[in-house]
């Protein structure tokens, strides 16, 4: 207490003197302020830090790992270290086989690789680039154990003896082309491109699956987004113009599907859309469809579009509704009193003001739909699946993780680009829940 009294006297004394304004602890006020601001910032960061570290570890690191895997290619260098060095001097465009020393390096590498069976993993890795190379490695792996490296002098002949494919220059070209630590091979494959002898070229038309798939994903997402606008706009308009009590009641009809488990809604559609399901039964009973000509509504694109429109519709209605609520009804009344008919008043005055809502809802629906996996997987059959289903296939069935990572990276870039747009026009902070 006494201390404070002293310093307050100090202030009283020092007040007429020009110089930095001092706080009651005798330090310049500016410095104290900066110090307290710094402490505030540190406190805020201290509160955020645990979560930030948690998210970085559990979420950002996995995403970074995926990005890394899409270009990573350590396996060739790890399994065939000597061969990779020996191949550096070989001119792959000459059309001639590598020299005897390279074959010897391959024999030594393979002998070691067979010990921990890493040659089969290498084989399946290179098989993504050139089919048939996997069996080449597996067969040679069995035979190379019996090859005596000390005794043999002509390794080319020894390899040709083990498998004729070893004198095929193409296989060596593939090994050399993918011997780097990093590769663009997965991205090329994801874009239906391949590395030929004359540089990068398109794969034959009938093998262009990813291009077709990407195109289909974008096309169907657009159709779904458009159907959401078509169905969502009238509902949002109705909700925004009705009295508050009624609209709150009707809003429940929108929120209930929004809150219902995705799996429940998907199973509902799986049940409804079946050939012997409720919709077809009703149509037959009404006489709109003959019993022997029931509609095929599931396991095709129609199924995916219907089910996903239903699932994403609340994501369109809610942002539209929140924008339409802010449009003052007096504008439309003013337009009408100036002589506009109903249509003109709506189209020239009301609609332009609701466009931000359409933009927000559309971007949201589009982003959500291009990354969807569950619903297309269940109701989409083979013709109605999206690019995400292909990613899942490569992770769990074909085990081509690099290609899965490359496809995921491409999808991520598209989605982040769209979010950047969303943030620019709507603002991420304006995301509202419920």
């Amino acid at each position, binding site marked *: 207490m006494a201390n404070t009294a002293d310093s307050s006297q100090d202030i009283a004394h020092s007040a007429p003197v020009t110089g930095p304004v001092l706080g009651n602890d005798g330090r310049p006020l500016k410095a104290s302020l900066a110090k307290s601001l710094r402490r505030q910032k540190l406190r805020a960061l201290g509160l955020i830090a*645990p979560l*930030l570290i948690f998210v970085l570890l559990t979420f950002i690191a996995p995403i970074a790992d995926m990005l890394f895997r899409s270009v990573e290619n350590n396996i060739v260098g790890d399994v065939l270290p000597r061969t990779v060095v020996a191949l550096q001097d070989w001119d792959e465009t000459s059309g001639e086989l590598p020299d005897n020393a390279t074959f010897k390096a391959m024999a030594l590498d393979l002998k070691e690789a067979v010990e921990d069976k890493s040659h089969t993993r290498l084989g399946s890795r290179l098989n993504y680039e050139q089919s048939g190379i996997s069996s080449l490695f597996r067969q040679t792996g069995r035979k190379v154990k019996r090859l005596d490296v000390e005794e043999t002098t002509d390794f080319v002949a020894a390899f040709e003896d083990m498998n004729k494919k070893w004198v095929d220059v193409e296989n060596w070209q593939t090994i050399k082309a993918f011997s780097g630590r990093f590769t663009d091979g997965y991205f090329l494959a994801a874009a239906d491109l391949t590395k030929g002898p004359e540089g990068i070229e398109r794969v034959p038309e009938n093998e262009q699956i990813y291009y077709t798939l990407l195109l289909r994903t974008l096309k169907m997402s657009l159709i779904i987004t458009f159907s959401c606008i078509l169905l969502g706009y009238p509902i949002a308009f109705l909700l925004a113009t009705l009295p508050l009590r009624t609209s709150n009641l009707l809003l429940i009809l929108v929120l209930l599907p929004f809150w219902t488990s995705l799996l429940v809604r998907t199973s509902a559609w799986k049940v409804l859309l079946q050939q012997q399901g409720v919709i077809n039964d009703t149509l037959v009973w009404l006489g709109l469809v003959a019993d022997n000509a029931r509609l095929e509504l599931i396991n095709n694109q129609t199924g995916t579009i219907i089910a996903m429109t239903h699932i994403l519709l609340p994501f369109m209605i809610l942002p539209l509704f929140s924008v339409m609520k802010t449009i003052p009804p007096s504008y439309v009344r003013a337009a009408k009193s100036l002589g506009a008919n109903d249509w003109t008043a709506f189209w020239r005055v009301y609609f332009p003001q609701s466009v931000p809502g359409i933009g927000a809802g559309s971007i949201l629906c589009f982003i959500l739909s291009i*990354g969807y996996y569950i619903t297309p997987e269940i109701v989409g059959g083979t013709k109605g699946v999206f690019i995400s289903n292909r990613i899942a296939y490569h992770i769990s069935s074909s085990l081509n993780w690099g290609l899965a990572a490359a496809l*995921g990276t491409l*999808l991520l870039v598209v989605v982040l680009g769209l979010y950047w747009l969303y943030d620019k026009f709507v603002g991420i902070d304006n995301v509202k829940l419920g």
Partner: protein
Amino acid sequence: MALPIYASPLQRAWYYGFRTICTLIFLFLIVPILVILPLSFNAEDFFTFTPEMLRFDPEGYSLKHYRDFFSNSDWQNAVVNSLRIAPMATFLSVSFGTLAAIGLSQPHVPFRRAIMAILISPMIVPLIISAAGMYFFYSRIGLQGTYWGVVMAHAALGIPFVIITVTATLVGFDNSLTRAAANMGAGPVRTFFRIQMPLILPGVISGGLFAFITSFDEVVVVLFVGSAGQKTLPWQMFTGLREQISPTILAVATILIAISIALLTVVELLRRRSERLRGMSPG
């Protein structure tokens, strides 16, 4: 927008036409969910209404799919797993998330936009990409196929919801209340639990509910990060839908619909209470 008495026939036609269209869209939204309810009481193993059901014959209805759900060990294991994973994931995301939301609401936060972008990112990135990344990374560090792996993945997915709802509640928070408490001698911890926490509790609870639903309803990530020991309810439904679809799934769906109606009611009540506490609406 009631119909004025001087409306022309065309306006009248449009008024009723528009309402018919809206009714049809509402039906599209709600009927698929409601149809599930009676179908789950089907006495037969069909996915459509049997003639007995349409005649409201008691013979056509039964609880056998519910009995199957409660006696089948696959389904019961799935329920147990879901109830082991979701609360833990919710606890992690709510405790970390609330602290961080309070930190983010301070007036001076360096790199606020960048931090916010990182914390919200699990909601933005498509689930299949999160699942792929987590599968790769968690198998590197030995978390793939473990209970904690799934819990941490789900906690990460739930965090954006907690951050969004709690920061929204904090926008209306009067900081002079904490200063008053500090002025009266309460320490920071006491101030937090006695003053700040009760006021932001509605936001915390609804954020927690969102996090819980996210985990309870999540299937893509658990499919990749989990193993057979973490087979959750949505996973079991997903396998059921993809392989041999049995009507038991309709009973499960009905139970889940009842749960979501209950949760929707809770969130709505909380929202009203929070607005009332902050004096934003007179009700």
